[in-house]
């Protein structure tokens, strides 16, 4: 099992406030890594550090290293635009563009000139198939993405993300706006995707982390308290704080 991302001595600041403190962890290739912890513990911030989405916020500062295939993504010679193509993202609320289903998926490939014409049609179909949405939308690709239900919208967002062929997919509480059935569908989908992609998911839902992930990291007040295989975190946590949190005594 290879490490896709290696984080070492990583610190992150919003102005004076230090949001992430001395993080060290490795994210395994083609595995699902779940990040859990109470609100404000820094897990979403950490997620956004991986594809440098925090760069768009004024006054932020990162120290330390985030190695993607051995290359620090914070090196000055890194092209952020290319980095974000390699590390895709799915957000908390389903957020399709207010355009057609087809246009949503085709947007990324068009921007990056990955395909056009019939090739683009194929790519859109492939992405929708991989996101297990194709059968539901194949006859209505020209319809507005807003006409889909939230669960479908979120799978559309996943299709949109994988259409640009990323290596890593970051998911920021992707199911928090979905009902249980739609949530399960997304979790099944994540399993499928993990065959081809490295997945990092932030979740508030303890069962989801236990069900759907291979590795789990527990964040508390900007620190990574414990990082281990999911079975170990939920079976025999080493840290008292971890145990208190996952059993609901602290949160």
């Amino acid at each position, binding site marked *: 099992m290879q490490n896709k991302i290696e984080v070492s001595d990583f610190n992150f600041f919003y102005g004076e406030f230090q949001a992430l403190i001395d993080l060290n962890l490795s994210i395994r290739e083609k595995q699902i890594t779940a990040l859990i912890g109470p609100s404000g513990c820094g897990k979403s911030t950490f997620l956004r550090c991986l*594809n440098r*989405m925090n760069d*768009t916020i*004024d006054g932020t500062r990162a120290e330390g290293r985030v190695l993607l295939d051995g290359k620090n993504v914070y090196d000055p010679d890194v092209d952020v*635009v*290319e980095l*974000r*193509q390699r590390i*895709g*993202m799915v*957000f908390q*609320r389903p*957020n399709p*563009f*207010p355009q057609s289903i087809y246009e949503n998926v085709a*947007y*990324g490939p068009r*921007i*990056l000139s990955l395909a056009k014409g019939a090739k683009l049609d194929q790519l859109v179909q492939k992405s929708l198939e991989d996101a297990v949405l194709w059968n539901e939308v194949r006859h209505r690709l020209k319809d*507005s993405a*807003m006409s889909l239900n939230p669960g479908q919208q979120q799978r559309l*967002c996943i299709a*949109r*993300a994988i259409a*640009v062929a990323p290596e890593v997919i970051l998911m920021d509480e992707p199911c928090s706006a979905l009902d249980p059935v739609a949530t399960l569908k997304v979790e099944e989908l994540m399993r499928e995707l993990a065959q081809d992609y490295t997945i990092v998911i932030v979740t508030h839902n303890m069962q989801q982390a236990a069900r759907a992930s291979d590795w789990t990291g527990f964040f508390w007040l900007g620190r990574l308290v414990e990082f281990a295989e999911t079975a170990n975190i939920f079976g025999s946590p080493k840290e008292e704080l971890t145990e208190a949190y996952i059993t609901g005594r602290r949160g």
Partner: protein
Amino acid sequence: MSRQQTQRLASVLITLTAVLVFVPVIVVIVYLIWQGIGAISWEFLTQPPRNGMTEGGIMPAILGTLVLTMGTALVSMPFSIATAIYLAEYAGDNRLTRTIRMAIVNLAGIPSIVYGLFGLGAFVLAAGFGTSILAGSLTLGIMTMPVVISTAEEAINSVPQQFRTVSLSLGASKWQTIWHQVLPHALPGIITGMILGLSRAAGETAPILFTVAAFYIPTLPTSIFDQTMALPYHLYVIATQVPGMPLRVQYGTALVLLLITLTMTLIATAVRTAVRRRRDW
């Protein structure tokens, strides 16, 4: 007075005030139509003035105003939209951007006659364009920029942040994000601001007084270096400078000018309403 009475009195007063606001508009429009409709005829709209401008039509002035409006759009639109994009998407909060914003606010407060004199000095004389459609368009263009910039900036800011975030997360560059996600969604708002700015420009007299407007040219302009007649200035001329001018023609001219600007405002409103209804975020 009981509470109910106070309440009733307040709502009556407030309603009255609101009615008072649009009474002048209605009165002006109705009065102009009543007095001017008799002057409007096919000949009035399609013929040049004759007989010391007391007869014939106002076609050169109508056409001049339309040409100037288009010229104004060509000058104002690219600069205003570029400035709005800069201010909304690129500019941080520093001394330069604060200066730019202050300049825009001040530009909006400058009396139109000052624009006219500036145009005379800068475009007619210094740049050597002479009194011409070019000089007039530039002057009017600068005058409309503040309102177009601020409405365009507002339109850009009202595009949900998540569209930008998603686009960037897919590997789009900042400019691609602006071009493919932000501008298409902001465009209706930008167009609305543009039309409102233009409808004001179409009705202005002072800025064109020294830069382009001709007292009387029966022929049509053939190049951007020609002078042209224009409705607002023509109205001023026939109302104050021509003895024995029939009132009917003055009201007719005013009515045509009003209809042009009113149409533009209505189009702007229609665009905005249509888009609001279609938008689903």
